[in-house]
Structure formats: structure tokens, C-alpha cells
């Protein structure tokens, strides 16, 4: 089992969700986050004073899938979230040690 964490541009969320449900992903967790990477921050002016926007708004997506499906999910997110411009985000893949569905008590791949 793999946990795929992706940071994407907020306006790309719907496209990514559609693409993932299209390949059979049945659930995901979404969080609004701020952060910086290569895109870094930028400066703005408010009432004549310049200030740095150090953290850029992003969406964090977490998807738990079977190991067999992980590469396909990473590919799909990459294709759907890409604009080609700086700030498209990053994807991380982690191992999941255990999974459990609260309602039924099913475990591991049955719980995904």
C-alpha cells in the first residue's frame, strides 16, 4: 500500500479529482495549505508599503492506493496538474504500514 502526497495548484484540484476517479481511485483527502518551493514568494504593495508573500497557497492531496496502482496514480496526477510553469507542485510516495476501515473493521488493501 502506498500513500501518495501531492501538492498542486488550487485551480487544478477539480481536473486532478476527475482524472483520478477516472482511473478508479475511490477516495482522497484534500487540505488547503500554504508553502514555498522553487516558485518561492513574491512581493506586493499595500498602502504604499512593500511586503513579501513568502507562502503561496496550494492544495495538498493525499491518496492511499494499492502498491500496484501507485505509479498509475502518480502519472495521472502529474498529467492533470501540470501547467508547465513554475509552481506546479511536487508528489511524494510513502509506504503505508497498516490501514483499517472504521465501519467494518476490514484491514489493509480491503480497507482502501
Amino acid at each position, binding site marked *: 500500500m502506498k500513500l501518495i502526497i501531492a501538492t498542486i495548484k488550487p485551480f487544478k484540484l477539480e481536473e486532478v479529482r476527475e482524472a483520478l476517479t477516472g482511473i478508479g481511485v475511490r477516495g482522497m483527502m484534500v487540505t488547503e495549505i500554504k508553502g514555498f518551493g522553487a516558485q518561492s514568494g513574491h512581493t*506586493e*504593495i*499595500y*498602502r*504604499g*508599503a512593500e*511586503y513579501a508573500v513568502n507562502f503561496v497557497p496550494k492544495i495538498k492531496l493525499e491518496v492511499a492506493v494499492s502498491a500496484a496502482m501507485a505509479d498509475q496514480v502518480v502519472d495521472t496526477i502529474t498529467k492533470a496538474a501540470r501547467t508547465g510553469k513554475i509552481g506546479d507542485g511536487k508528489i511524494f510516495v510513502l509506504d503505508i504500514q497498516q490501514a483499517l476501515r472504521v465501519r467494518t473493521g476490514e484491514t489493509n488493501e480491503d480497507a482502501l
Partner: protein
Amino acid sequence: MNMQRFTHKGLAAAAFIALPSLAMAQDAPAPGFDEIGPYIMTTLLFCMAGFLVFFMAAGFAMLEGGLVRSKNVTMQMTKNIALYSVAAIMYWLMGFNLMYPGEFNGYVGSFFVTTTLDPVGVAAADAALDYASVGSDFFFQLVFVAATASIVSGALAERIKLWPFLAFVVVLTGVFYPISGSWQWGGGWLSEAGFSDFAGSTVVHSVGGWAALAGAIVLGPRLGKYGKDGKVNPIPGSNLALATLGTFILWLGWFGFNGGSQLAMGTVGDVSDVSRIFANTNMAAASGAVTALILTQLMYKKPDLTMVLNGALAGLVSITAEPLAPTLFGALWIGAVGGIIVVLTVPMLDKLKIDDVVGAIPVHLFAGIWGTIAVVFYNGDASLGTQLLGIAAYGAFTFVASLVLWFILKATVGIRVGEEEEMTGLDMAELGMEAYPEFSKG
């Protein structure tokens, strides 16, 4: 020319002296429209203009609520409704008669003379037929003093304690504003000297601005506003839609502020003048806003909405000292200069480390000074020297008196919340109540 505000006292007295002869003529015909029409129309003007200026309290509340952070919104609303209400009571208790004392030495009238209304169903013979009812006059004047107090609350937002602030408002609205107001509108020494301030660029707006400036200096800036290296850290407001609504409400209210200051609507000339004032007032606001829009685009590469809002208000303040005499083009350029003043002086105050949350000092004080000077361009009766004398007199009195009062409050009860309270926000720290309890913390 507008009727001087103070004349109504004398006229009422004249009507009173004439009363016995009228009373003897028992079978005289009921007074015709020529006699009572002006009284009715002017009273109506004061009532309607008073409603509009009253609504400016809502404008100030929304403007300030939008420009403070969400953790201070409940406190800002509390201060706004409290200051209006305190002003209304103080003006009855002493303000109105201190400001319009009738015969007086020209500097200070009598304290603690409360306001008495006309009797119920007053007879025409007993009314001030050359002016308006006492109730309408009192109401129209008290909404002006509330505007002065609102100016102070915006500048000192997000760090001043509620009760010391209200203590200042008590003295400002009951003593400072009425005393200095009597110099001009009460028929005092500045009006004798020929100073001209139609609706109060100086008498109302600069006075609020001076009181706010003194307060901002004594109070100090918000935590984190100015870095150790002299860097200015902007603290963006919570809701620019509310700030914009507030500005539009103030703009609407200003038609009453300036139009009502004609103080008469009983003749063709007067009613035309009122409409002339509306048109000029609107033009000055529009040109102030457009000027700020263009100037921020040129200076910062992007327009700054908060400056455009301030620009509209600066245009309004600029035209307030003489909204009647200028042509529409005159109103346009006077307002435009107001817009320029705001865009240039907001960063200037930051350089001096004077933290004015909503831009009240640039808008009401600096544009108020400009508007008072600009009177000389279209009003032939005004002279630059007298205008400067008036500006200096109001500035010296209000700034020094306010400074002393702020220092007394600071030394006795303290005027500033603690650091932790300020970081938590005044809503939870001082009131235990949030404006937006269901939103997550930003």
C-alpha cells in the same frame, strides 16, 4: 452666501420680542406660506440631512470594520456604536449650547447648559420662523460631532482599550469640539475674523484628525507594524467589500453633511444652492477616487483599492469647506488634489512611524487643511491669511488639548492593551466575543 449658523439664536429672540403684538391680534388670519414655508422647508432639510449624516456612523463602522483584522472587528463595531451614542448624550448635556451660546465672549461659552426642545405642537408665533425647529437644528448638529469622534476610532484601532477611548470621546464631544466649534459656527472670534468653513473641513474633519494624530502618537503603533530596521509591515484589513460599502455610505451621507450646511431651504436660491452643493460634493469625491486610482497605478504598478477609498473620502473632505461656490470643474480639481494628498501622505505617516489603521489622518486632517485653503479660490470673501489663522488655531487647540488628555489617560488608567491581548485580538481579550466565530483563524 450661506447664513451663519449662529444667527438663529438672535432670530429666535427677535421672534420672542415680537410675540406680544402678535398675540394681541387675535383675529389675524393664519400665517401664509410666505411666513411659515421657509421654517418648514429648513426644518425638513435639517431632518433629512441629519438622517444622512447619521448614516455616516454606519459608513465609518463598515470602513473601519473592513480595514481592521478579523480578530478586532467586534471591538471596532462596539467602539463605533458606543462613540455615536456617547456623542449624542454629551451634545445634549453640554455640547450644543457650548457650541451655540448666543451672546458670548467669542472663545468659551457656558458649560452644562442642556438642550431644551420646542414645546409639543409649537405655535407658529412661538417658532423661530426665520430658521428651523430646535429639534431639527440640535439633531443636525449632533450628528456632526459624532463624525468627529468616528475619525479618532479608525486611526487608533486594534490596540486602544475600550473605556479610555470612550473617556476621550466624552471630553472630545462634550468640550473640545463644542469650544472650538463655537469660535466659527457659534459666532465666535474666528467667524468675526472672517474665517470661512462652510460644512467643516476644519471645524469637523481636521478637529477629528488632530485628535487622532495626538492619540496615535501617544498610543504608539500596532505590534509588528514597523520593523527594527525601519521596515514598514503592511497589516491588510479583513474585508475590503465592507470597507468599500462603508466608503459609499460615507459618500451618501456627505450629501447631508454639505447640503444641510446650507442651513436654509426656504427660497429658490437656497434650494438651488443645496442641489448645487450635492453636485459639487459628488464631483469632488469622484475625482478624488479617480486620482488615487491612477496615481497608485503609476506609483505601484497596481491600483490599491484601499487608497481609492481613501481618495474618494479625501475628495469629500476637500470640498467640505466650500462646496457651494466652485464650479463643477472647480470641485473636480479640488477633489483631485485631495486624492493626491492621501496617496502621498499615507506612506509619509508610516515613515514617521505613526500608525493610522484606516488612513484617517491623511483623509480628514491633511485633506481638511487643503480644503480650508482651497476656499480662497472660489469664495471672494475668504482670505488666505485668515484661512491659515483658522487652521492654525484649530490645530493648536485640538492637538494640544488632545495630547494632554491622552497623556493623562495613559498615566492614570492606561490606554493600551497588553501585548498578549493585542496578539490575541481585542475581540477575545477585551470582549470575549468574536465577529466571525465560525471561521478558522487565518
